[in-house]
Structure formats: C-alpha cells, structure tokens
C-alpha cells in the first residue's frame, strides 16, 4: 500500500509529475514515422514522373515517412515562437529543413475581442484537416488534394493579423474571426500545379526545399529558367506584396466555417530565374463535430494561375483549378476510421502550344490506432483515378488508376 502511494499509478501521472518539476515554457515534440509501402503507381512526381502519388511501384518496401521536431517556446503569456523541423528521406535537397517558423502574439481578450498576430513563415488558415502536430492530419496519412497543395506550394512568409469576437463567451453563440495577411516570397505558387496537377500525399515542402522538374513542355520560358533544374516555391521575384483575407465562424467544438480569398498579386512581366506565377483562389470549408466522435469535413477551392511572356508581361499561359472533398471520420476510443472522397481538375484556358491539364478523383480509407500517448499505427489505402495530358510527353498513359497502401508506425516523444 505504501508503495502504491509512493509510486505513480500510471504513465500519465508520471508525466504530469515530472512536468510539475520543471517550467513548461518550452515544449518539444519529436515524431518518428516509419512506413511499409505497396504501390502500383506511375513513376512518382518526386522522381520527375507523371504519377500523382508519393510512392510508385518501384518504392515497395520500407521508408522513412517523416521525422519532425515541433518546438514551441513561450517568451511571455502572450508571445511565443513555433518552429517545425522535418526530414522525409525522399532525397530532398536539404536533409533537414524548416516547414514553419513564426512568432505568435495572442493577446488576452479585452471587451470580448482578441487580437492575434503571426509573423514569420506559416500556413494560410485554409485546411480544416491538418490540425495535428507539425501540420499533420489526425484523420489519415495523406492529406486531401486541396490541403496537399497547401503543404506543397503555399507558405505565408509575412504577417497575418486576426481579430476574434468571442461570442461564445459573451453571448453564448459562437466566435467570429476576421483575418488578413500580407506576405512576399510566394511567387512560385502554381508551378507544381501547372506541371503535375493535383496530388494527394503527406509531404510538406520545406522553406528551402526543391522538387524535381517534370519534363512536360507547355511554356516559353527564357533560357535561364531555373525551374528546369527543380521546382522551388518560396522566392520573391517581382517585389510585390500579396494578400489573403477571410473569415471564420466557430461554434464551440461543433461547427467551424471558413472562407478565404487569396491573391499573390504577381507581376507577369517579371522574371528572375523563375516566372512570377500569378495565383488566386477562393476557398470555403466546413467542419462539423458531432457526438459519438463523428467528424465531417468538406472543403472547396477554385482558383487560377498564370504566367506572362517576358518582358512584355502579356499572359502566355493560364490554368484554372478546382477541387473539393468530403471526409467522414469516426473515433472509437483509441481507434479511428476515416473515409474521404476527393474530386479535382484543372483546365488550361490559355497557352501557345501543348496544353497540360488534369482531371480525376480519389478515395482514401484510413484506420489509426493509438496504443498510448507515444505509439500510433496507421493504415491507409489511397486510390487516385486521374488523367494528366502531359504524361504523353513522359511516355506514360494519360489516364491511370494508381493504388497505394501504407502502414505507418509512429512514435512521438514529448518533453
């Protein structure tokens, strides 16, 4: 009995006791995700192919899914820093690189309003899926097509200010947030979308990362076009500031609605190793969380991207893109089942030569189980049924149905 009193009864208790012993001004999360993969996909875009999946039929076997370190440090009650370091084991340019790093200043509410300012590099608030540590999805391994695009090509490198009216506190209704951002260094967004089209995967391009060029030729670039050596996304080319603005309505844990308009305001006449891609979108999203641990998420996005002839700036290429998905997920204690349907497509509405566009849909089924706070196993089946006209240039079938099954074993360590 004395022993029972002296010794912590459970790991959770032990964690909280050791937490009591030290200040928690700094928190670390180290997550290691190892995969077993089976795929019949076309050569992956990560190999310069036209396949839409991270792993192709040469990748069957074991891989590093992702290793990341998520750090949060608190300077004061309201000012903190957040950074995420990653490695994917996919022959990336930098073995370890940063996906997000920003200062977060979140005031205490005054008079029912709260201001929040983020400065640094972070994601625009579009995804309703990627709410896990390190911007992962707690519902599946691979993100939806829309949120995959955000992980690959978008980063706000600048500032975002939001004001939240805390109606849940003052009126028992919900919270209304208005947000707006000014940023630079995202003039390449649209590049990967124009070559490969939509994809579903779990990779996030780090700030200094690069993806292989996919040899589909539909543009008239100057001879010094850097993107032929690889796709990079976080450059400032035209010295113009881009913006996005939007609103969120949140009702406790029950309902989250979000709408965003984005425009990077790229100058089509500018070229500095790469085109300035003029990319705009509108997006809507809804997440409903019901009793019995049911979650439903739907997002829709419609946008376009364009580049110009250099130096005239006359538009030489334009691509419209649209996608939506519906996700249903149910938790059963430590177990979670998720099903998601994605629909996506792009349409090249202007161009001088070959037209590259895609259309397709995808089904994702995932099962995740948490053995304890540290160990998780996830299984996912992903089927992408799509066409990409540029595959002709790669000697690949334009239309393909690609299957990929992944088993992830994940260990996380928290301080």
């Amino acid at each position, binding site marked *: 009995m004395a022993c029972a009193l002296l010794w912590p009864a459970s790991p959770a208790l032990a964690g909280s006791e050791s937490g009591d012993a030290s200040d928690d001004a700094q928190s670390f999360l180290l997550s290691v995700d190892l995969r077993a993969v089976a795929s019949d996909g076309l050569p992956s875009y990560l190999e310069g192919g036209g396949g839409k999946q991270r792993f192709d039929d040469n990748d069957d076997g074991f891989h590093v899914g992702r290793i990341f370190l998520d750090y949060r440090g608190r300077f004061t009650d309201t000012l903190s820093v957040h950074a995420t370091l990653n490695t994917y084991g996919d022959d990336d340019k930098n073995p370890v690189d940063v996906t997000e790093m920003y200062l977060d200043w979140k005031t205490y509410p005054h008079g029912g309003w709260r201001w929040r300012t983020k400065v640094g590099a972070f*994601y625009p608030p579009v995804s309703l899926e990627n709410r*896990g*540590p390190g911007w992962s999805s707690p519902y599946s391994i691979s993100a939806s097509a829309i949120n995959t695009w955000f992980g690959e090509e978008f980063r706000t490198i600048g500032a975002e200010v939001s004001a939240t009216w805390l109606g849940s*506190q003052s009126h028992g209704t919900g919270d209304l947030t208005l947000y707006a951002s000014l940023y630079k260094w995202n003039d390449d967004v649209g590049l990967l979308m124009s070559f490969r089209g939509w994809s579903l995967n779990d990779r996030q391009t780090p700030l200094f990362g690069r993806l292989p060029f996919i040899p589909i030729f539909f543009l008239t670039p100057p001879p010094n076009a850097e993107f032929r050596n690889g796709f990079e996304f976080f450059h400032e080319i035209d010295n113009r500031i881009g913006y996005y603005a939007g609103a969120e309505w949140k009702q*406790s844990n*029950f309902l989250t609605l979000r709408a965003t308009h984005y425009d990077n305001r790229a100058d089509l006449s500018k070229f500095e190793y790469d085109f300035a891609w003029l990319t705009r979108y509108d997006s809507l999203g809804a997440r409903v969380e019901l009793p019995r*641990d049911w*979650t439903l998420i739907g997002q829709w996005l419609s946008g376009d991207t364009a580049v110009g002839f250099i130096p005239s700036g006359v538009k030489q290429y334009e691509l419209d893109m649209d996608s939506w998905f519906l996700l249903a997920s149910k*938790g059963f204690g430590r177990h979670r089942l998720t099903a998601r349907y994605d629909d996506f497509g792009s349409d090249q509405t202007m161009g001088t030569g070959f037209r590259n566009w895609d259309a397709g849909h995808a089904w994702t089924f995932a099962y995740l189980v948490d053995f304890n706070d540290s160990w998780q196993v996830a299984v996912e089946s992903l089927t992408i049924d799509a066409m990409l006209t540029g595959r002709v240039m790669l000697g690949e079938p334009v239309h393909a149905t690609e299957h990929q099954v992944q088993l992830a074993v994940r260990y996380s360590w928290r301080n």
Partner: protein
Amino acid sequence: MKTPLFQAFLALSVAGYCTAAQALSVQVVDPAGRPVADVVVVVSPSDGRAVKTESANRAHAQMDQRNREFVPQVLVIEAGTWVDFPNSDSVSHQVYSFSPAKPFQLPLYKGSAHPPVLFDRAGVVTLGCNIHDNMLGYIYVADSPWFGKTDIDGRWASGALPIGRYDLRIWSPRIRDTADSLHRLIDVGDRLDLKETFKLDRKVKAPAAQPANGKPWDDY
C-alpha cells in the same frame, strides 16, 4: 459541492432568521418533461437583504482543468469564495474572463504557482482559455448561501429555509428560455411540502461534443 446537511447548518447559522424552517425541492424539466441536470438553483431573500454567512469568506472551491475541459463545467459558489484552478492537465492553460462580475487572467503553467481567485461579486463569470478556445466554463457567483445544481433527475433540494419570501432562480448555459421565466417568488411558510417545478418552453442546447477528447489538436 455542499451537502444538504451543510446547507442546513449554514441556514441555521444565519443571524436574524427565526428558527422555523422548511426545505424546498426544485425540479427542472425540458418541454418534453425530461429532467435537465446541472442547472444552477439559487434561493435568495426577495427583499434583497444580504445574507452573509461567516463561513463564506473562508470558503474554497475548485475549478479544475482536465483533458482540456473545465471540470465542473458549471461551478456555483457564494460570493466571497476563493476558487482554486489546479490544472490537472500536462499542458499549460491561460484562463481568463471578461465578464463584468470578475474580469481576470490567470496563467496555469506547470511548475509555477497560481494563486486562488476571489469571486466577491454576484453574477455569471464565463471562463475561457486563451490557448484552447474550445474550453468554456462557468462560475455562477450567488448572493445567497442557498444554492446548488440539479442532479441527473433534474432535482435539487435546499436545506432548511427560514420563513419568508424568496426569489428562486435557475440558470444554465444550456437553457434558451428568456430570463423572465427562470425566476419566481416563493413564500416559505408553514406548508410541509414546498415543491417548485420549472418546465422549460424551449429545448435545451445539447452538451458540447468533445471529439478531440483531450488530444493535442490545433484549430488550424
């Protein structure tokens, strides 16, 4: 949570009341007649005279933080009570309120002391956490020593009440009825069985789902 016996003791210790006393039982039901639990019930003298018990200034109550929720979600205390916020979670919280009855900010970091908070003005204090927006809690600060919350059968019974006229109020964040129908005057006299039933006109809000179940998920 104060027991009826303790409340009876409180009631008897209040100076200036005659010793004749009677218990009051209250039930709250929804439009379909189903009991509504966790509803705050407060009985206070209708003439507005302050009923201060000596014990109130020394009283401590607790509003814990567990799995990123306030526990209990609704705490009812008498004005003059100190409330401890122990934070049983392994993560930090930053509790705040901007309610007129008690605006305050209280960081609950691991390893650093956080003092109790004195609630000395009557009213509803809505609690939030500046780190976890989904956390929502309420402290109902009563101006009377006779208070409690309905049980799973929607019932609450007072201790012995001295003879007199009282204002009987009920409150819950889940109730949508207008304030007018949530209080009434009652006379505590010689009748033996004093029972009051509040039948709500509007459906109560469902308790908030907690699908994240304490998991470290962000809003983004």
